[in-house]
């Protein structure tokens, strides 16, 4: 057997083992979620979950928070990444370090920091009422999703040579605002969408921050159901998994459509 065939077989073995490692627990969870009714498979657990008003309200709440997080994230990250690329490239390592911090710092530390800074007796009492706590939660989510959003947008900007496009716009008489909205945003749209979907997938199942800030999000609901029911948590896990994968699929669809258009 030649080395090329050996390497191909090795790759297939690694792929199959890896796939089984991920898929078998999923199949097990899915199979278990169908056993709510004795002696038969059914989607009863899904029916129970989907008709539970708390499921709908918590899922709706988390979806809304995810959308708010995405908007704040875009407003914060896109101009920052643009300016770093254009005028302050020396600051790139520092900004990359800052944006990666949420990956290495446990969420519980971040949220306790927020609680100390923004508690009801502080100068900015963001935990004083529900709406301001929602805002604090959205800010927390922005921090949490920063590594994904920044990296996606920054990679997109590097791919389109932002500096030259900006100079081309400037020499044609455009202001920086015009360039940002007419030239830069449309050309990093796919990167922004990728960041947005990753943010959505991160926020939708987040538990620690929502729980410690005592907000009715989907993550705490998942935990609550998991602690008190048998089959419904499995159904919820599968639903959450599908939502995440739908987001990943959308990234691929949007990215693929753009690539296809470029090839045409």
């Amino acid at each position, binding site marked *: 057997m030649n080395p090329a065939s050996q390497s191909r077989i090795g790759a297939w073995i690694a792929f199959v083992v890896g796939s089984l490692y991920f898929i078998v627990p999923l199949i097990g969870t899915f199979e278990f979620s169908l056993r709510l009714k004795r002696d038969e498979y059914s989607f009863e657990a899904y029916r129970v979950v989907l008709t539970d008003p708390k499921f709908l309200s918590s899922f709706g709440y988390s979806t809304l928070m995810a959308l708010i997080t995405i908007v704040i994230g875009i407003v914060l990250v896109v101009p920052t990444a643009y300016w770093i690329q254009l005028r302050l490239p020396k600051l790139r390592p520092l900004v990359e370090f800052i944006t990666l911090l949420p990956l290495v710092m446990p969420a519980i530390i971040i949220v306790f920091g927020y609680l100390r800074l923004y508690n009801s007796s502080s100068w900015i009492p963001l935990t004083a009422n529900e709406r301001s706590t929602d805002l604090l939660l959205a800010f927390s989510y922005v921090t949490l999703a920063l590594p994904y959003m920044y990296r996606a947008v920054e990679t997109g900007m590097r791919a*389109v*040579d932002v500096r*030259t*496009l900006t*100079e*081309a*716009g*400037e*020499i*044609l*008489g*455009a*202001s920086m605002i*015009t360039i940002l909205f*007419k*030239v830069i945003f*449309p*050309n990093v749209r796919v990167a922004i969408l990728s960041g947005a979907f990753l943010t959505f997938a991160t926020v939708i199942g987040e538990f620690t921050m929502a729980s410690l800030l005592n907000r009715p999000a989907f993550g705490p609901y998942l935990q609550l159901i998991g602690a008190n029911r048998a089959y419904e948590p499995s159904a919820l896990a599968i639903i959450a998994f599908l939502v995440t994968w739908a987001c990943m699929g959308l990234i691929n669809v949007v990215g693929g459509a753009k690539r296809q*258009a*470029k090839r*045409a």
Partner: protein
Amino acid sequence: MAFLEIKDIRKQFQQNVVVKGFDLGIEKGEFISLLGPSGCGKTTVLRMVAGFESPTAGQIRIDGKDVTVLRPNQRNVGMVFQAYALFPNMTVADNVAFGLKVAKRPAAEIASRVDEMLNMIKLPHLAGRFPYQCSGGQQQRVALARALAHKPKVLLLDEPLSALDAKIRVSLREDIRALQRELGITTIFVTHDQEEALSMSDRVVVMNEGRAEQVGTPFEIYNQPATKFVASFVGTLSILKGKLVDAAARKIRIGDHEIVAGRGTLSGRPGEDCAIALRPEAAVLENGVDHHALNGANGSGLNGQGRNRIGGTIEEVHFLGSVVRIKVKVQDNALSLDTFNNPSAVPPQRGAPVTVSFTPADVLVLEAGA
């Protein structure tokens, strides 16, 4: 007063001075090339005229107006970039219309100007295409149309041909020059390709280490180089090392042969080292080897026709199509000469002994009495 005046500009990046006291006056409608090796400061000068870089010192005036501190979008100049820089999200027509839309021109005027520009670059059929659906040459034409659409006072071309293949490069440079003549627009063209600079420009500025070494017509730059750098950078030169024989009679010994040098300063004592430069097209390959003639009639170094003659051996023969470049070894020196390709003649053979002749006026003294 020149239409575009660059007065004693200097640019310093931290400790690194990239442009040092650069002066240039460009007349309205003139096509000027900034030519020089990488890092000589030519692009920095262009970017200062565009407004992307601010001069550390000096002044830039366009049509009498001081634009030194104005932002690029306030200068009314057009620019074509090396990497095209078309907006990927816009069609060709939208790209061309961008500057006019930014200037809030009426829609009818924009449409008519876009049509006019696309016809001018002979690409009206590409109006609805996106940049990635066009070839490199087409994209650069569109970039040119976009740069000209808003009727700028000055056109800046930053190595616009360097990303294109050889054939398109030649055709596009002819088109650019024709367009520039037709519109009469003042143009600065940055390139490190001497052939482009010499073939397109009214005047060429040869730059080295942040300074203008020489400003002149292509003919002057090539035939009357002001400095050793210009002589060696523009065109191909054979540099031959020899010994001074007689400074007053302008005689130099190259190996066993005495020649007469017509150009350049020659001073010093007999026996001192010196170097001469010769263009490949100035040297002629003669038939046969006449050893008597090689030593120079009456010791003058010249033959009966007033030409220097030296003997050597063919070392390399490079076939370049219409031209054949022959490298002749003259003892420790190598001399290149160009001959036109003659399909009916026997090509020169490596190792063959040959005689090369050239006039004293073709010989430029580079170093003497050093």
